[in-house]
């Protein structure tokens, strides 16, 4: 009885969180199967087959599995799951959408957002915006988990050569139709996988002013993030939001600019290795968790920061 991992991909390549989920799976069992479901996704399955630690890849390729529609995809997982002891998915919007549905189809509880695997049936997960951690034991015959990517290292993407097996007989329930997507396009690294993240908050005052954040980000090869207040105000798109209800990041360096440090924001970034805060209010709670705090006006500090990086060393 091995572990089934639900792979996240865009038909051609794997999303980075898949690799972290594979590492979590390998901590449970050496027998890890990766499921790639989609429409026209053989290239993604071939990429999956190269991941170190994968014993086999299952490829479910059908028009009705396009766009990860959860109704059809959950049915595929629920059919495969009884051959496994565990089903793991990344705790991304994709994994969170489909996995609980598949678990419920098998009358099985799920453990969400796992940050550590204590044993094959005991897992640690954050609760209350990361202010507490619960160690949870599951007695279910098949254990469904979603995995927080930042808590596990990425498995090596190349080096393996697992066989690919085709899964047929998937059904179209016809409950949902995909209309369109509006994906943010960016040349910058993906927020959840970036080594450096520069985030702006309400203190930025406008979307126009986010250019300062972007300039600094580009100097450092960083991704751009934001607080909920900055997203709600329309400065930047929703997928920039870091926090309890946005994305969880844990880069080597997180720079919070004009962000006060509400617990809901901290929940998304406080596992970063080094945190820098720039805020004009010396009392802002963000300073309590920052490794380096700078009290000052961001409209002065950001241009200076950028200029400082340009100086010859």
């Amino acid at each position, binding site marked *: 009885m091995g572990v089934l991992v639900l792979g996240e991909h865009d038909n051609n390549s794997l999303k980075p969180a898949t690799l972290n989920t594979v590492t979590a799976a390998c901590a449970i069992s050496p027998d890890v199967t990766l499921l790639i479901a989609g429409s026209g996704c053989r290239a993604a399955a071939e990429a999956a087959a190269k991941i170190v630690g994968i014993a086999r890849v299952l490829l479910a390729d059908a028009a009705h599995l396009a*766009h990860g529609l*959860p109704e059809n995809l959950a049915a595929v997982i629920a059919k495969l799951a009884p051959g496994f002891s565990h089903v793991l998915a990344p705790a991304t*919007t*994709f994994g*969170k*959408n*489909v996995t*609980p*549905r*598949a*678990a*419920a*189809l098998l009358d099985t*509880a*799920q*453990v*969400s*957002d796992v940050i550590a695997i204590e044993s094959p049936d005991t897992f640690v997960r*954050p*609760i*209350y*915006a*990361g*202010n*507490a951690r*619960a*160690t*949870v*034991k599951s*007695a*279910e015959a098949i254990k469904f988990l979603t995995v927080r990517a930042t808590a596990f290292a990425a498995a090596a993407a190349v080096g393996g050569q697992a066989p690919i097996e085709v899964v047929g007989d998937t059904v179209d329930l*016809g*409950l*949902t*139709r*995909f209309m369109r*997507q509006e*994906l*943010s396009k960016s040349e910058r690294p993906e927020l959840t996988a970036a080594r*450096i993240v520069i985030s702006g908050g309400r203190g930025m005052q406008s979307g126009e002013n986010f250019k300062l954040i972007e300039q600094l980000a580009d100097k450092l090869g960083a991704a751009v993030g934001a607080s*909920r207040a900055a997203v709600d105000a329309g400065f930047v*798109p*929703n*997928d920039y939001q870091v926090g309890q*209800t946005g994305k969880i990041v844990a880069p080597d*360096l997180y720079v919070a600019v004009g962000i006060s440090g509400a617990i809901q924001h901290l929940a998304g970034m*406080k596992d970063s290795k080094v945190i*820098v805060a720039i805020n004009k209010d010396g009392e802002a709670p963000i*300073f309590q*968790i*920052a*490794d380096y*705090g*700078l*009290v000052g006006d961001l409209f002065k500090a950001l241009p*200076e*920061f950028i200029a*400082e*990086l340009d100086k010859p*060393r």
Partner: protein
Amino acid sequence: MKILVAVKRVIDFNVKVRVKADRSGVETANVKMSMNPFDEIAVEEAVRLKEKGVAAEVIAVSMGPQSCQETIRTALALGADRGIHVNTDIELQPLAVAKLLASIIKREQPSLAILGKQAIDDDCNQTGQMLAGLLGWAQGTFISKLAIEGAEAEITREVDGGLEVLRLNLPAVLTTDLRLNEPRYATLPNIMKAKKKPIETLSPADLGVDASPRLSTLKVDEPPKRQGGKMVQSTAELVEKLRSEAKVI
């Protein structure tokens, strides 16, 4: 059409929670409780659909101890028509909540069930998806826009890469994201009116559901604390520290 909304009573989002000394959970005695913020958004959306004439009735459901009735009253003050309280002191986990909701839905036959995308206490983000699976209904999760058009709902979802637009057959289960709407405040006259609205009380047994927990919590503890608070005086010092001390740039 009828709409069912699920409203959970949780520790208010402004409260800094504390882990109990015996590590059995977090301190809930004398702590301010509120409706889960995502569920306020769910109620607001349902009430707006009623105001637009799309929905005929809004039913608010909460599960847990007697005190959940307060949360239902809040939903009634925001415009829900009646409440259902599933009264139980059992620790309810998402699968049990989904089964109880599914059983209520079989009796009430709503066209839409609207839940929060996650409860801010346990942050499970499961219940709506499980409910949709149990019912065999379409699901629209993490939504920031909703339009009902005949027997379909067009929704916009907030996903990791941006936004996604889907059309769902009704009946369907929806879960709310923060930007779906801005909930109203309950006015005093509406709070008074809410006191007269009916709340039905049921037990898990009435609904034919075994709600016992499947997962057991072995311990609850605090995450490692960060040692912050170091200040720098200038951007030059900051850049120098990041280069030579932290070695991250």
